[in-house]
């Protein structure tokens, strides 16, 4: 497979997966580019042990999980440094979570159900979110999901059930 063919076939697939994992277009584009560059770099060594699409999904999900971990580390060290050495007011503006009547909800109302569903997805933890997206949106089998995430098939099955149950609760709580 040439690089050009690979990009034509998988760029949109990777971007959509990234979009559902990150929840916004800007981060999705960054993650998709990151994953595609990694995939292109590793493409000559691809042995065909799995489907090319499964392989690309795995690269994308791993790149995303690495980012999540790195963000958590940054958040941890920021908390430590601000708490120990600095006045938070002087170092950065205080982050205020949006209230119930903030513009975010207004936007959600405009965009309707899709935005509510996307917001609920973002509240799942990394593996659960990846399982739901790969199953519901990318329509991958349990075996493929297990291969992408490096989990046992039984684990995928039980976690998908729990993730769906959690989504059910989140969507039930969401404003109509």
């Amino acid at each position, binding site marked *: 497979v040439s690089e050009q063919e690979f*990009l034509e076939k998988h*760029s*949109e697939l990777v*971007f*959509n997966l990234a*979009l*559902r994992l990150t929840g916004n*277009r800007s981060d999705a*584009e960054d993650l*998709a*580019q*990151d994953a*595609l*560059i*990694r995939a*292109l*770099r590793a493409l000559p060594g691809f042995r065909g042990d799995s489907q090319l699409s499964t392989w690309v999904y795995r690269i994308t999900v791993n*790149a995303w999980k*690495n*980012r999540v*971990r*790195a963000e958590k*580390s*940054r958040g941890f*060290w920021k908390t430590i440094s601000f708490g120990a050495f600095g006045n938070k007011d002087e170092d950065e503006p205080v982050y205020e979570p949006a209230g119930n009547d903030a513009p975010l909800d207004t936007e959600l109302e405009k965009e309707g*159900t*899709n935005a509510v*569903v*996307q917001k609920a*997805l973002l509240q799942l933890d990394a593996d659960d979110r990846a399982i*739901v*997206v790969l*199953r*519901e*949106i990318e329509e991958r*089998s*349990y075996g493929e999901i297990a291969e992408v995430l490096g989990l046992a098939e039984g684990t995928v*099955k*039980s976690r*998908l*059930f729990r993730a*769906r*149950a959690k*989504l*059910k609760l989140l*969507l039930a709580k969401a404003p109509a």
Partner: protein
Amino acid sequence: MNDQIREKLSAYLDGALPDAERQAVELEIARSEDMRLELEALRAVSSAVKGLPREKLPDGFAARLESRRAREGSTPPRDYFILPPAYRPLAFALSTAVVALVVWDRTQTPDIVPQRVGWDGETVGIKSAAEAPPSFDVSGRLAAMEEAGSADKAAANELTAKKEDDAAPATLGKQHSAPGKPLEIQESEPAPSAGGAGAGFAALSAPAPADSIPTAPASPPSAADTIEGSTGYIARNEEERSAINERLYKGFEEEKKRMGIARIVDKDAEETGLASGGRDLMALQASPEAPSVAQRTGSVGAVRGGSGRRSSAPIVKALALKTPEALLAAWAAAGLAGEPPAVKFPGEMAVFLACPPGCGIVSVQSRKKLVVVLYKDTGYDDPSARVRALASSEKPVVVKRVE
């Protein structure tokens, strides 16, 4: 049973159950309204997520991707924030070791030593005779010498003498490295293998009236005059013992001079031969019962040679003495000959410069808030340059060296 079936609803929805399990789930759904509602709810969730639209690539995606590829080259992007994952176990092990070391250090019980205020106002510990280290135990060196063989006795004696010359001032220097701190000279515990040199110094430094110190080279004879070893005995004659003691004594005297100590008085001795009853000397030897000079005079200035950092250079102090007894004691403590200059107590006080031999007061300036004593190293000892009379005051005294 219901919980197990409920867990299988999700897989049933995806058509991922084996036939037997699928039939069991279908039976339960047909039988239970709750199961049916649960299945419908899961199906609704699944449909909602499936309903998220697929989106097209943003405009210019391919161009930006190519640009980024060119920019990043073959360098893989960094996924970690601080340390590569491979180094994390090592970092964890190192940090754990450091924490363990700190905890261990904190759990060690420190030796509790009594504290008192020294001449220059610092707090210093006081050691008893039992706590003092065997500073002059040269048994190790003598054992090495012994191995060299008794046949080469003359050479061995020379080696011992040289080492003792090197070691004695260094050991003394360590023991008295903080001028102004309490001075303790303790008798070495003669080890079984300690030879004549060790015993010789033990005689030198044994608690006794200070006047006995110069006579110390006449050390007690006994088995300590020989070194017992597996190959026999190394005998020392009187001349050799005297030579060793002489060298030790010389080093000891040099160290005393360097420290500005006139003589060492046994703290248990009742008779010091001084009009002050030896109270001022007590500060030098730091008897726990003796009030410090700083407390008694109320005004002591001190300067240490070199920079402001702590060093082993002798400390120079100026004492504001307000009684003739105090002046006499300080005079005697400094080992100065003759009588101190006349001072009209109590209207006047004596500013006394405590320093090693070869220094003298240049001038004393009584300023608004303090008394400044300027001194310099003259290179010769002029006792009268150690004292200046000044109108009595409570102002603090500071010392400044001039060239």
